[in-house]
């Protein structure tokens, strides 16, 4: 039951609106998120799908919540998370990824990421564990410096690393 969820938190020197764009807009995601982009702009209640730069599928699911940060209220982006980038992981039931984006004062935004509903998905649980740390780190670096982390990691590296 407890191997059901990962929780992460990071502070980024950018506005909540900028962080929100980095999570929900393809122009940003393809620069730090294993080159992935949304096939269609995500919309609340709709299915979504992300693909890699070469067109291979990455993730699909449903956007369950999409509330941008407005007037000091935290932004919430909740998506079910069905992995398509690996045949074994694709067989496991989808999890749920919840982003919360909140002003933390002094020019900082707090990003909390919860990847839950992984109780029946042990391979995914293991696979994404360290991957999210890298994604968050890369997103922070991109927003703060204008460039993502220098090493470009693809999903193959992540899958490989989690298995070794």
């Amino acid at each position: 039951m407890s191997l059901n969820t990962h929780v992460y938190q990071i502070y980024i020197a950018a506005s909540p609106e900028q962080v929100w764009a980095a999570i929900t807009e393809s122009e940003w995601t393809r620069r730090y998120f294993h080159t992935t982009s949304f096939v269609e702009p995500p919309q609340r209640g709709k299915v979504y799908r992300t693909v890699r730069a070469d067109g291979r599928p990455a993730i699909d699911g449903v956007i369950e919540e999409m509330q941008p940060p407005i007037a000091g209220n935290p932004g919430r982006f909740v998506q079910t998370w069905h992995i398509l980038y690996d045949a074994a992981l694709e067989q496991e039931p989808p999890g749920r990824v919840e982003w919360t984006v909140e002003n933390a004062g002094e020019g900082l935004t707090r990003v909390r990421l919860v990847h839950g509903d992984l109780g029946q998905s042990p391979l995914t649980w293991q696979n994404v564990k360290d991957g999210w740390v890298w994604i968050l780190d890369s997103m922070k670096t991109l927003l703060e410096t204008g460039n993502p982390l220098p090493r470009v990691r693809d999903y193959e590296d992540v899958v490989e690393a989690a298995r070794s």
Partner: protein
Amino acid sequence: MQSVEQGTEVFRALADPTRRALLDRLFSQDGQTLNELCQNFPEMTRFGVMKHLSVLAEADLVLTARQGRTKRHYLNPVPIEQVANRWISKYAARFTSALVALDDQVIAGSETEESRRPESA
């Protein structure tokens, strides 16, 4: 808690062996309740465990999330990664390059002995 102060908070939190043990417990079993964590430290009061958890939370190393009426504790690896990037990679990289330079010198010096370079790990 914030980027500038985070290093200090993280090092302070990690300086205590009980707090490192708490992180190890969460690493092996993430998402434990306070009661579950306390069972691992029978010699310590509940209040003592809570105090250590609050220091870990201040450093952002432990996050809590509610699941119904249950409050669960999660290990957040992000600050450790940041400290590693800031402090450890930098010096380890220098150490590694020094070793590589030494290795090159040794090999250059022993070329006449036809010694073979060891297989890389």
